């Protein structure tokens, strides 16, 4: 139990010392991507191999007083380079092995002992045709600057001593040496802007809540991460949960809240487990609870599991959900910072926003402002996915261009296909095209291009993607997730979805495009919350940048990328057709006719584009054309 700041410092020193004595580690990534490709089995095999050779050291032994040698295997949070998972990193050398399987355990342990890397497991850059040994030299990592993800992937997330050894809770120690006002001022000075999408200065929010008198104040961490295609917050919570706890502790102290909630998505059970465990650890050390480190400040943390509603990421809906009601937004003002949870002043911040706080308190606001761009200081995490060569989790300075992110870090479009667009900011965001590649990624530049940085989901799309279908996909999502409180959002999204459905089925008209724009602007203006206000963005931005593609669908009745089933055509390639009649028998609507042993013919007017003929043809004579 730590009773004073002094106690904390002593424990931290001890942890650091011990960790420095045990530097031989094999870090197996157990993040979402790697786990889905068998990382757990890889970890077990390495552990078994170490045990077999009598080299096994555990994380627990690392921190014990008894001298011990050996190698420590550990399962870490996301190391980022998900595309090449399962990943294994050797320490202290920093050698990174990619696409590791259970058969590689022996070679990996050998290489750590001998210092000679296993070349077949090193990352091979497909364009430069060279392999890289050290993680830090791989272009994917080299161009990043990891602040909030600094420990993610290198520490064991389920042991607080690992975090302490890396300077954890030092920001909190610094905060305790100041008054709450000074803490809020430091965050104001840093100009840290909310990473949950809105970009509102965190310090401003804090000072409003700090300045409101109330018997009880609350802090809520928004870990709802509803944007489909985003996994930054998940990775952070799973890989470095104490960083979030430390950020919340500092925030609670600054605004005078004694209770904090973490609202986590239902789909993230591992994050919930990790946070629960981290909270228990912090409580047993006295870093959470009453009179923390003898400061007189008390703070407790509770976890609320979401129940699967995207709209609950919106602040007032989130509050309704914690209170046990249907998650429906309320008009503002009053803002939550004045009257929020149980009508008390409440600050809601995103996971990544809070994860930046420990470093700001530890290194100061001037240091923070030296990163990123002047109006958007700091870094931003992105989840790179879709048709990009290197999918994964990255953290880059604000103001990095889209081109650097997609090409230099992301390795360009998968299989050398042509770049078509990126969808940024999820269903509320917009599409950016090749003409935006040199746009700096920060809050204000994206806003002016009709998109938004959002939470940081970035999905790359290549030429084979049908942009109209993508717009329909997003509209389907928002329509399903609309809470139904206001008419423009509830009915407008439904009508827009119907129109888009019509277009992808090949029944659209040019008037439909006008209708989409008209309804879209009404939904944007007339909706209460951010969900409705931004729901038309994907449609309106694609209509602006890819109007030709919409026109192909409605005028030429063609889907240029051949995706829309309703617009494809099946034709029989006569030279290949043997006239066996199989297709004619398979067709459910009798659209195929012909004479045995002569080429058959498909009546396009009757055809319902089900593809049954193509499936049954033994001679590949049925072709699908766009």
């Amino acid at each position, binding site marked *: 139990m730590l009773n004073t700041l002094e106690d904390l410092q002593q424990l931290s020193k001890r942890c650091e010392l011990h960790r420095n004595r045990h530097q031989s580690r094999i870090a197996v990534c157990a993040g*979402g*991507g790697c*786990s*889905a*490709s068998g990382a757990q089995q890889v970890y077990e095999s390495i552990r078994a191999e170490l045990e077999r050779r009598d080299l096994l050291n555990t994380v627990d032994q690392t921190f014990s007083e008894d001298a011990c040698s050996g190698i420590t295997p550990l399962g870490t949070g996301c190391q980022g380079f*998900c*595309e090449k*998972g399962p990943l294994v990193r050797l320490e202290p050398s920093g050698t990174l092995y990619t696409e590791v399987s259970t058969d590689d355990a022996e070679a990996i342990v050998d290489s750590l002992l001998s210092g000679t890397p296993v070349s077949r497991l090193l990352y091979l850059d497909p364009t430069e045709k060279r392999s890289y040994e050290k993680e830090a030299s791989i272009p994917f990592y080299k161009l990043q600057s990891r602040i909030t993800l600094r420990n993610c992937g290198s520490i064991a997330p389920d042991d607080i001593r690992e975090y302490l050894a890396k300077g954890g809770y030092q920001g909190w120690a610094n905060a305790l040496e100041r008054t709450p006002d000074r803490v809020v001022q430091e965050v104001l000075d840093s100009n840290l802007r909310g990473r949950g999408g809105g970009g509102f200065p965190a310090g401003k929010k804090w000072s409003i809540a700090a300045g409101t008198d109330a018997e009880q104040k609350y802090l809520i961490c928004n870990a709802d*991460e*509803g*944007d*489909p*295609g*985003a*996994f930054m917050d*998940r*990775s952070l919570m799973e890989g470095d949960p104490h960083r979030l706890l430390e950020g919340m502790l500092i925030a609670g102290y600054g605004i005078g809240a004694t209770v904090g909630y973490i609202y986590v*998505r*239902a*789909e*993230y*059970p591992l994050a919930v487990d990790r946070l629960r465990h981290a909270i228990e650890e912090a409580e047993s050390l006295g870093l959470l609870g009453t009179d923390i480190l003898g400061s007189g400040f008390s703070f407790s943390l509770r976890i*609320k*599991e*979401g*129940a*699967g*509603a*995207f709209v609950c990421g919106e602040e007032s809906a989130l509050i309704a*959900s*914690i*209170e*046990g*009601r*249907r*998650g429906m937004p309320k008009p503002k003002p009053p803002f939550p910072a004045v009257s929020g949870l149980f009508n008390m002043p409440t600050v809601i911040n995103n996971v990544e926003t809070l994860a930046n706080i420990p470093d700001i308190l530890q290194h100061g606001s001037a240091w923070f402002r030296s990163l990123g761009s002047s109006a958007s200081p700091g870094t931003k995490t992105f*989840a*790179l*996915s*879709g*048709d990009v060569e290197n*999918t*994964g*989790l990255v953290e880059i300075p604000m103001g990095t261009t889209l081109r650097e992110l997609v090409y230099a870090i992301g390795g360009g479009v998968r299989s050398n296909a042509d770049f078509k667009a990126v*969808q940024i900011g*999820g*269903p509320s965001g917009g599409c950016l095209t090749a003409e935006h590649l040199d746009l700096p990624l920060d809050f204000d530049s994206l806003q002016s291009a009709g998109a938004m940085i959002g939470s940081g*989901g970035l*999905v790359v*799309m290549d030429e084979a*993607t049908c942009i109209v279908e*993508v717009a329909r*996909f*997003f509209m389907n*999502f928002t329509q399903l997730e609309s*809470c139904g409180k206001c008419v423009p959002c509830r009915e407008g999204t439904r009508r827009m979805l119907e129109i888009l459905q019509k277009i992808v089925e090949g029944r659209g008209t040019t008037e439909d495009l006008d209708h989409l724009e008209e309804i879209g602007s009404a939904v944007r203006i007339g909706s209460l919350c951010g969900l409705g206000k931004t729901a038309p963005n994907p449609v309106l931005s694609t209509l602006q940048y890819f109007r030709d593609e919409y026109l192909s669908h409605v005028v030429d009745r063609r889907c240029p990328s051949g995706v829309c089933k309703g617009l494809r055509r099946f034709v029989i390639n006569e030279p290949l057709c043997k006239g066996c009649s199989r297709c004619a028998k398979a067709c459910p609507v009798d659209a195929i006719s012909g004479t045995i042993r002569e080429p058959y013919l498909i009546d396009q007017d009757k055809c319902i584009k089900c593809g049954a003929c193509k499936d049954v043809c033994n001679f590949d004579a049925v072709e699908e054309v766009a």
Partner: protein
Amino acid sequence: MLQTTANRQLDILQRLDNLVQRYGKHSSTLIPMLQEIQNAYRYLPEDLLTHVATALDLSPATVYGVATFYAQFSLEPKGKYVIQVCDGTACHVRGSMPVYEAICKKVRLVDGKATTEDGMFTVETVSCVGACAAAPVVTINGEVYGKVTPDAIHVILDTLESRGDTADA
């Protein structure tokens, strides 16, 4: 372990009581209680909804309203294996729909139904399970499978069918 229905019912009532004791007779306890039931039964049986309403002094309509608002809750029994095909953006652009169709075909689901006649499989889509880099992603009773192809799904489902009764655990 084999549990009788009556035992199970007693067990869940006990756990619901514990929740009320821990968090108080307050509407903010409602969602945790529903989650407890959903986890135990894979759906919300009607009699338990009434029990919850009484325990928290809420109207049955309020409880029903909350139960129907959130996607996690289901009023219909789900299959023994719940297959969730991720159709988040990343999975969608990497071909989640052909995987979904292949699964429906394989377990013989027709007419937009979500659960098979024999109660073995429920197939549904979800938006992002946070493993986007391994897209397309499928989870089966919470176990995550990455980079799934329509062909791979046959192998996975065949293994499940031969594995037997793990889902009751």
